[in-house]
């Protein structure tokens, strides 16, 4: 069974601090997506990473795909209250080309 593990499950930190959340698996993936879901809304795609070792930046968010394409991290610099939300990673289902599967997410709460 393909498993995507996200850690930590919950994270609550003060505004201005830095943080990193992780998405790990024992499987190799062709690509990996990160989404953010705010309360009362649907998930919104933040980034897709494709190449092992790839780093992508989106303002204060830095995404990295592991060299072996089995894991990924999301680092947020100087967190803001607007970063609060559920962060989900997702990958194409192993051996299938018709769906993606999601991790259980990291619930991030930035305190003012």
């Amino acid at each position: 069974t393909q498993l995507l593990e996200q850690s930590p499950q919950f994270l609550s930190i003060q505004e201005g601090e830095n943080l990193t959340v992780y998405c790990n698996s024992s499987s190799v993936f062709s690509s990996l997506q990160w989404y953010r879901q705010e309360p009362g809304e649907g998930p919104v795609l933040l980034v897709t990473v494709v190449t092992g070792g790839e780093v992508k930046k989106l303002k204060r968010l830095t995404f990295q795909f592991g060299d072996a394409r089995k894991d990924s991290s999301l680092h947020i610099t100087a967190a803001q209250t607007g970063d609060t939300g559920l962060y989900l990673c997702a990958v194409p289902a192993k051996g299938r080309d018709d769906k993606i599967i999601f991790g259980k997410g990291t619930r991030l709460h930035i305190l003012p």
Partner: protein
Amino acid sequence: DTAVSQTPKYLVTQMGNDKSIKCEQNLGHDTMYWYKQDSKKFLKIMFSYNNKELIINETVPNRFSPKSPDKAHLNLHINSLELGDSAVYFCASSPRRASPQHFGDGTRLSIL
């Protein structure tokens, strides 16, 4: 302009009733999905249609019946609603199978 819109946003109904949720996308995407998000925020695929053709039917009770009248619409009809059906149901679309998804804002279904 809302890219993926689903109605209603809230649905409160009695056990045993039949209800429908509608979804429309104006992105010109070929593939549409229904996901269920439970109280622990786990997002799980239920159905997927590609150009009006059903391509994924995960282990979902046959009380749930999707219908795609055209590739811009995917509706979900649920018969004989049960307490365990309470969840948030998300519609999504993507340009191709398993590519990054665009989500609607969800339908919050509560069964009394």
